[in-house]
């Protein structure tokens, strides 16, 4: 297994790729290793570019200029307007529970930008001919293809860091798992005033990382009503942890559990 990792968006991204062994020549194997380095570097650059444009922590980012009123959305970059439009679509699809706006009205795309980065990194790996890999960006996971023992992902226990609440295997078509929690750094989840605080962690497994990420956020933001809405309206596997430490999962999630 080869492992690359880099820091971006205030977290760590790691890329795991099964051993690159070329049966014809050692030279070919070395070329693949160089191609992998380049593909990861391209993905890292994509993350950096997204962070530079969309981070509200950076005064010089495009989104900070919009927040300060120095730049009108209509005059912003295509990337900005596209990302905003996509986030608004998710707001509509989640009954306005997921929102790209802070309570003060400022546009905040931190709920979708990490998924864009993960997808960009995956695209870079695919473009270089790597079809088996696992990307882990601060606990959000995207897997492609498989590895000897399968891509197994543990669900952290927010009440006890010494244990996992379960292990699932990510395999086609379940490529992505994202987790949201109320104690996480940088989640920027704006709850409705009437939200019950029942859930302290929500994990969503979906075909793509954007769906998984947005819906995990939606469940934490909207509580039980959103859990019901998500499981009834989307083809996703869901696992939640309540504040008392008890857990719930739908049948699709249980099917993904290993053992």
């Amino acid at each position, binding site marked *: 297994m080869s492992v690359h990792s880099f820091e971006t968006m205030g977290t*760590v991204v*790691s890329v795991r790729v099964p051993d690159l062994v070329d049966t014809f020549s050692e030279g070919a194997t070395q070329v693949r290793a160089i191609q992998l380095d380049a593909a990861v570097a391209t993905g890292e650059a994509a993350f950096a570019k997204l962070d530079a444009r969309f981070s509200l922590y950076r005064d010089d980012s495009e989104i900070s200029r919009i927040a300060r009123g120095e730049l009108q959305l209509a005059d912003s970059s295509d990337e900005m307007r596209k990302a905003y439009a996509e986030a608004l679509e998710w707001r509509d699809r989640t009954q306005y529970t997921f929102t790209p706006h802070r309570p003060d009205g400022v546009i905040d795309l931190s709920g979708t930008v990490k998924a864009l980065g993960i997808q960009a990194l995956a695209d870079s790996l695919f473009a270089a001919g790597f079809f088996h890999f696992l990307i882990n960006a601060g606990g959000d996971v995207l*897997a492609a293809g498989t590895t*000897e023992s399968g*891509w197994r992902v543990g669900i952290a226990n927010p009440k006890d860091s010494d244990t996992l609440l379960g292990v699932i295997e990510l395999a086609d078509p379940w490529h992505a798992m994202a987790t949201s929690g109320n*104690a996480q750094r940088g989640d920027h989840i704006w709850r409705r005033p009437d939200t019950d605080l029942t859930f302290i962690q929500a994990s969503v497994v979906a075909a793509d990382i954007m769906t998984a990420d947005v819906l995990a956020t939606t469940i934490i933001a909207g509580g039980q009503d959103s859990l019901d809405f998500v499981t009834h309206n989307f083809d996703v596997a869901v696992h939640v942890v309540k504040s008392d430490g008890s*857990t719930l*999962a739908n049948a699709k999630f249980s099917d993904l559990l290993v053992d």
Partner: protein
Amino acid sequence: MLNQEAVSAQSRNISAIGGATYTSNAYIQSYQEALDKAGFTA
């Protein structure tokens, strides 16, 4: 419903842990670093 039985991270062949942001959780950070350093852990 899922049963409450917790499993040990070390006993499984795990590639990643979802459910915590490494920067906010020392354990997860160290465990993930161990995973990454191990490299061969599938």
